[in-house]
């Protein structure tokens, strides 16, 4: 099941690169290309780590810590 989910993630990213990323950067807009690439890379890394059951730190913990500094629900 894990391999299937990993395959789905990789297939999704390949489809996004082929059908959306490449047409978007064809007009040579460097800024769009960079922003798109960075977001694609970061999200891909997080998702691949998730599919391999590697725990990625969640912002929920940081937010909870920040809120509980001022107010304990």
């Amino acid at each position: 099941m894990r391999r299937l989910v990993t395959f789905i993630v990789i297939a999704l990213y390949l489809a996004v690169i082929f059908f959306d990323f490449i047409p978007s950067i064809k007009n040579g807009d460097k800024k769009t290309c960079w922003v798109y690439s960075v977001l694609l890379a970061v999200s891909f890394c997080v998702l691949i780590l998730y599919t391999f059951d590697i725990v990625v730190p969640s912002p929920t913990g940081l937010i909870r810590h920040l809120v509980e500094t001022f107010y304990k629900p």
Partner: protein
Amino acid sequence: MNSKYITMRQAICIIVVYICGSSVVLGGNSEAGQDSWISMLLAQIIVIPMVLVYARIMKLFPEKNIYEVVEILFGKIIGKIVTLLMLWYAIHLAALVLRNFSEFIEITSLPETPQLPLMIIMILVIVYVAKSGAEVLGKWALVSLFIIVFIMSLTIVLLLNQVSFDNFLPMMNHSTKTILTGSYELFTFPFAETVLFLAMADYVRKEDSPVRIYVWGETLGALILLIVALRNIAALGPAMLKAEYFPSYAAARIISVSDFLARIEGSISTNFILGGITKISVCILAASKGLSSLFNIQNYKKMIFPVSLCVLALCSILYRNTMEMINFLKIYAVYAIPFQIIIPVAIWVGGEIRKSIKAKATETSA
């Protein structure tokens, strides 16, 4: 034919479906038990001033979205910081709602299916809606609202033989603090989340009244949620209401008419999907516009896919389990304050000061 603008009716429908979003299935605050309908009414009253602030911002800066407004008011550097904060809020909220959806599907229908493929399917539909533009989103919201109201009405009629008005008693059994806390939590989730609609303010014509859009949207949305809350209390009772993660689903599950009409709780899933798609689409549109404003990218539609994939990645790592998701609601009530109250009030005050300075300058020159 896609025009840039949405009609007032479409804007109202977007806000109504946005408010219903996940709340129509998650239900209102259940800590107050049989008094949660009172919390809902109070929440609607306390959100009105905030909604008027949002509408006033749209009135002061017609056909400009919140990112353009903060740059006009606060300059480039502070404007970019505020844009980054609102961008983060939009992405985080989209991830929260998407996670609500996948948890709901896992608990109610597909416990053996991994959540990630469910999230991917949902996000692909949302990307399609978002890329189609605001006018398509408006038309989609119009149709969704009709279906949501129809399904809600159907469940109420079919539950008439199961409800007990004794479930509302004893009234005001909970302390004032519990009821007020419930009202505040409803204020932050979902009413004041309509702050993100300010990112779509450039789709609203300056001739259309933002006050009418916001007040009608909030009132109709609150009315739907109030009816849902009343139905859930009457059907489930306070004990089951507190025990269930998804009270609307639980209420629909007990529908049974003459032994031939039962198991129609799938209709509640329909409401969640329709509301969820609209809510997440608005959040992703807001985030894409924020990102394009931050990096001065002309066409925000190019950012929809990367933003959606970031939402997907964030959604998968947000919580370890459903309990964490439910417990986060209490933290969210405080965490949302800067995005729903502080930043909009600062923008409003800045806008009023700018308007009065301009008026004085006009008087002086005249």
